[in-house]
């Protein structure tokens, strides 16, 4: 376990979180949220929480993103903030 990678991922997680909230397009926000979840999953597998990471990979990065995309598809991509 390299602490540099650990720190880099921890920082990237914050970056993707902020980006998914700042981007002015809901589809983009959904995809960035997927990236956020996947980085989170990586972080947890680094920390040894393999079951949690597996669940997050399938639920958070997988199915949640699909739900988001489906909902955005059924509503609109427009967002003011």
């Amino acid at each position, binding site marked *: 376990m390299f602490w540099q990678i650990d720190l880099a991922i*921890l920082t990237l997680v914050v970056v993707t979180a902020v980006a998914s*909230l700042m981007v002015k397009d*809901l589809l983009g926000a959904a995809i960035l949220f997927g990236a956020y979840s996947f980085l*989170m999953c990586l972080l947890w597998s680094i*920390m040894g929480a393999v079951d949690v990471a597996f669940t997050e990979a399938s639920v958070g990065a997988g199915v949640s993103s699909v739900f988001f995309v489906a909902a955005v598809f059924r*509503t609109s991509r427009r*967002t003011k903030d």
Partner: protein
Amino acid sequence: MNMAELIPALIAKYNYWIYITLMMIGLYAMIAKNNLVKKIVGMNIFQTAIILYYVSIGVKKGATIPISAGGHGAAHEAVHAADYLNPLPHVLMLTAIVVGVATLGVALALCLRIYNRYNTLEEDEILAQIRKK
């Protein structure tokens, strides 16, 4: 506290600072964002931040993943607790992740209902429509 003590203190609990940062990002988004889906994204970030906190509790120096190395045949060998990560927070967080996706589904369903009625996802526009009536 001088600089020499501060930096080790910062690094020793880096995970905790990140979890607080993420949680506050999520909380701010839930309070201040105008778009309903953005608020849901914020809500999910808020929830994952708490999961990050719990997973950080479970980490132990010098320990490996919480699966017995011997496999099925090694029931008689002694297992040393110090060699394995703390499995309890992991179990709790499996539950929390599942609760998170359940909440997400319900929230998106509500968003769809709102969009069908008001044809927008911006909270201020919806409130303006309600007030107009």
